[in-house]
């Protein structure tokens, strides 16, 4: 029954799908077709429920009737009100339209008024202008009569600043004739004033009357003659600069050669010239700014620069003549071509002139930087409202002035010669330092390293003092070449001669002869490292060269750092262009790369020393291990304990051998060398170990020997010995095992913190060295 009831509605839903909730969900046909009582009952039940629901809905609707009716009444009451509102709205619209029209009317009148007002103003302005014009005309005449040129110029200025169209319009008026006449008079006055001012200025200039010069200089801009005023004024200033410069040059030519500044007298003269011009700029910049406005300094300096160039040319010509600059350069070039030393120019002779040239250039750079700054800031003020194009145009003018002035070109030429001469100076002096190389007992390095770096530093320092970045970079490049090619070659050739190979016996003799050499060298004070005659000297030379190479590598890095900070200083003062920093960095990094080349050379030298001096001796000492049986019993073991068969002597031999190197090599190199030696010992010892046989006690003996060796080596180097001997230590562990299978306590998952450096095959190989281990057991091991 329950199932039927549940199925019923589902079937009914399917039939009457989409039927409204008001109509019954059961159709008549369906009810008529029902035959089962249960179905009928169910249908009846549902119909009853539906009826109930419909009844409920109807009740709800009926309840709303009263509310709806009351609302309808309210609506009907509102009817007349709505009519009232409509009438009001129409009235309002009418009023708004009226007001709008009124407003428009008023505002158009206001506009007309405004127009009238403007025209009135213009009329007043024009009247004023015309009055002004008349006033100017009268004023100019009076002022000119009274020789009050400032006043006259002020009137002309007023006239010039009048709107030309106004004047044109005035002429068309009724009184055009009068105005025309006035204008004509005014123009005549303008021309007259221009002539007078120019004449007066010229007279004042001739008489050197500064107040009068300045007086008329101020008048030019009022007459619209900015360019002319500046050019005339510059002419006056140039004359002053020229006479002062001539005076100075005469003084120079008369200077006594013993004078303290005699060696840099031309640089001093240039300094005076530049300072003079700078002072002129400094003094007259305010007057130019005030009366000519900003952005005019460029014109003034451009004129001054012509005179500056003329004077620089004179000074430099004299410099070239007096100091024989070109001939010296020629000689340097010839000396570089020719290799014969007889005709070579002595580098020391070049020293003073090189210093003077760099000083001259430094002064020029300082001066150029000064005018650059002044002009730039003046343009900046003048161009604050200008377009980007105008600014760029001005920048171009400035660059052109700075780059193309004769001063710049002359200095570039002098520096060009300078670089060639400085390079020659450096190369030759370095060669000399190499030729005069000497070694003093007790020193690790020989004299040439210090000398060479002193020279290189001096030459780069001098180039730096020129304040020219390109000059500095060129000398850094040349220094890199000299160090990398020339000097490295010298050291390389010395190392190539090699460390004389000595046998064990030779070595013992070597110690005694080294003692005697020491005696003789103490008497002589020093001994020569060039002519290598005896083996001991050859050895000494080799070790000193290794030290030299290391110091070179260090010195280059130090030099680079020093130069970096020097350059930072120079750049922070505003010298050099935008790429200056990048250029210097690149050149310096090339120099730093040479330091690595010296490091490589050192490494190769040490390898050479290791393979020719250490290996041939250490190897036989280690081979002695083979003659000591490690297949031993209790008795031999205790005998070994009393009389050490191998390791103690080995340590003594090593110690003796290394004493020589420890004394002769710098700590860093010595340490690297002992590092190489310990690696060598580890490798060689492993080889002999694998050729030996062991008993249980023999293994113990080896373990003791290895521990002593490691303990000794730990004291002589700062390198980590344990790592190098890791394989040997592990081999000793294996040789010390009780049984073959005991290895499993240390292997694989049981290895704990221990990292095996031996392969399973190697473990088996070492296990096989134990005579008492059976090979079947070893084979059976699972590693």
């Amino acid at each position, binding site marked *: 029954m329950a199932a039927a009831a549940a199925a019923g509605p589902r079937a009914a839903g399917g039939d009457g799908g989409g039927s409204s909730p008001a109509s019954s969900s059961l159709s008549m046909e369906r009810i008529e077709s029902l035959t089962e009582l249960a179905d009928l009952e169910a249908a009846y039940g549902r119909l009853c429920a539906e009826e109930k629901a419909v009844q409920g809905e109807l009740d709800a609707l009926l309840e709303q009737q009263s509310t709806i009716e009351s609302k309808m009444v309210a609506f009907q009451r509102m009817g007349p009100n709505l009519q009232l509102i409509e009438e009001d709205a129409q009235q309002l619209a009418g009023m708004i339209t009226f007001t709008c029209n009124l407003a428009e009317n008023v505002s158009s009148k206001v506009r007309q008024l405004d127009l009238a007002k403007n025209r009135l103003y213009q009329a007043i302005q024009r009247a004023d202008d015309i009055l002004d014009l008349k006033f100017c005309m009268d004023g100019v005449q009076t002022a000119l009569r009274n020789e009050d040129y400032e006043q006259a110029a002020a009137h002309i200025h007023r006239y010039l600043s009048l709107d030309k169209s106004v004047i044109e319009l005035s002429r068309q008026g009724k009184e055009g004739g009068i105005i025309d006449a006035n204008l004509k008079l005014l123009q005549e006055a303008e021309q007259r004033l221009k002539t007078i001012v120019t004449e007066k200025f010229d007279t004042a200039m001739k008489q050197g009357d500064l107040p009068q010069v300045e007086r008329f200089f101020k008048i030019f801009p009022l007459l619209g003659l900015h360019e002319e005023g500046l050019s005339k004024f510059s002419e006056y200033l140039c004359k002053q600069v020229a006479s002062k410069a001539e005076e100075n040059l005469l003084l120079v030519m008369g200077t006594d050669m013993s004078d303290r500044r005699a060696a840099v007298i031309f640089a001093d003269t240039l300094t005076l010239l530049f300072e003079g011009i700078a002072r002129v700029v400094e003094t007259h910049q305010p007057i130019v700014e005030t009366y000519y406005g900003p952005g005019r300094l460029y014109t003034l300096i451009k004129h001054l620069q012509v005179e500056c160039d003329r004077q620089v040319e004179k000074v430099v010509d004299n410099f070239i003549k007096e100091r024989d600059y070109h001939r010296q350069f020629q000689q340097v070039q010839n000396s570089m071509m020719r290799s014969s030393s007889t005709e070579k120019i002595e580098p020391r002779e070049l020293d003073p002139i090189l210093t003077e040239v760099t000083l001259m250039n430094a002064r020029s750079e300082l001066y150029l930087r000064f005018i650059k700054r002044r002009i730039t800031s003046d343009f900046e003020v003048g161009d604050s409202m200008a377009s980007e194009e105008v600014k760029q145009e001005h920048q171009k003018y400035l660059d*052109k002035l700075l780059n193309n002035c004769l001063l710049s070109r002359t200095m570039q030429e002098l520096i060009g010669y300078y670089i060639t001469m400085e390079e020659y100076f450096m190369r030759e002096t370095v060669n000399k330092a190499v030729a005069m190389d000497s070694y003093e007992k007790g020193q690790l390095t020989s004299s040439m390293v210090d000398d060479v770096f002193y020279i290189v530093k001096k030459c780069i320092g001098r180039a730096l003092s020129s304040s020219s970045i390109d000059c500095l970079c060129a000398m850094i490049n040349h220094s890199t070449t000299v160090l990398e090619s020339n000097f490295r070659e010298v050291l390389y050739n010395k190392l190539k001669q090699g460390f004389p190979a000595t046998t064990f016996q030779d070595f013992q003799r070597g110690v005694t002869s080294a003692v005697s050499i020491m005696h003789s060298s103490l008497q002589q004070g020093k001994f020569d490292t060039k002519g290598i005659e005896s083996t001991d000297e050859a050895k000494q030379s080799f070790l000193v060269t290794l030290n030299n190479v290391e110091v070179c590598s260090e010195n280059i890095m130090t030099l680079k750092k020093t130069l970096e900070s020097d350059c930072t200083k120079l750049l922070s003062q505003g010298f050099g262009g935008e790429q200056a920093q990048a250029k210097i960095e690149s050149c310096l990094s090339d120099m730093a790369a040479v330091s*690595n080349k010296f490091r490589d050379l050192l490494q190769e030298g040490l390898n050479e020393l290791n393979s020719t001096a250490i290996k041939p001796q250490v190897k036989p000492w280690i081979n002695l291990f083979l003659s000591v049986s490690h297949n031993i019993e209790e008795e031999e073991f205790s005998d070994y304990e009393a009389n050490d068969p191998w390791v103690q002597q080995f340590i003594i031999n090593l110690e003796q051998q290394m004493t020589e190197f420890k004394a002769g090599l710098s700590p860093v190199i010595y340490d690297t060398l002992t590092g190489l030696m310990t690696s060598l010992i580890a490798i060689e010892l492993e080889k002999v170990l694998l050729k030996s046989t062991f008993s249980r006690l023999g293994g113990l003996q080896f373990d003791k020997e290895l521990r002593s060796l490691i303990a000794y080596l730990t004291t002589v180097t700062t390198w980590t010995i344990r790592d190098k001997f890791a394989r040997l230590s592990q081999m000793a562990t294996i040789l010390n095992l009780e049984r073959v299978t005991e290895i499993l306590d240390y292997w694989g998952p049981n290895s704990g913190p221990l990292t095996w450096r031996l392969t399973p095959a190697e473990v088996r190989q070492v296990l096989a060295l134990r005579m008492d281990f059976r090979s079947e057991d070893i084979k059976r091991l699972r590693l």
Partner: protein
Amino acid sequence: MSMEDYDFLFKIVLIGNAGVGKTCLVRRFTQGLFPPGQGATIGVDFMIKTVEINGEKVKLQIWDTAGQERFRSITQSYYRSANALILTYDITCEESFRCLPEWLREIEQYASNKVITVLVGNKIDLADKREVSQQRAAEFSQAQDMYYLETSAKESDNVEKLFLDLACRLISEARQNTLVNNVASPLPGEGKSISYLTCCNFN
């Protein structure tokens, strides 16, 4: 040594008479510009451009030298460390071509013997003013065993090709040399720096 991100670093130096267009070639390549009315270079200019060739970052340090005589001693100091030299002349200027042997003597004297030299005839956009025929230049470059190319910095003709081809050749050269070097003596601590200019090795 800075830890910059590149696989190769090469120094390229442009040389040749004044006014043949060295600066314009460099500007065109590095900035894509052709600045008209370029003033004469003072001393040396320095530009960097990193290009990618077959997935490898190649940093090109380009030194643009002044052609004027008075800067010669400055420019000469850059020859030795150069991996490549671009010797430039102006195809509309016979004089600039006639000076080439002089430039070659300078290269001979100052540059490393491993340096790669490229001959470049610039300004082919001014074809109607040509004074140096392509054939003449080609013959000259063949006789001197130089790579030869004609360019126009103005029209951007062959400029990219010039630098990229050069970079390719430098890479293959560097590979060969490091290979030779490694066989001769494995230098510890050489790292990445390409110093195949090393002339002497310890044997």
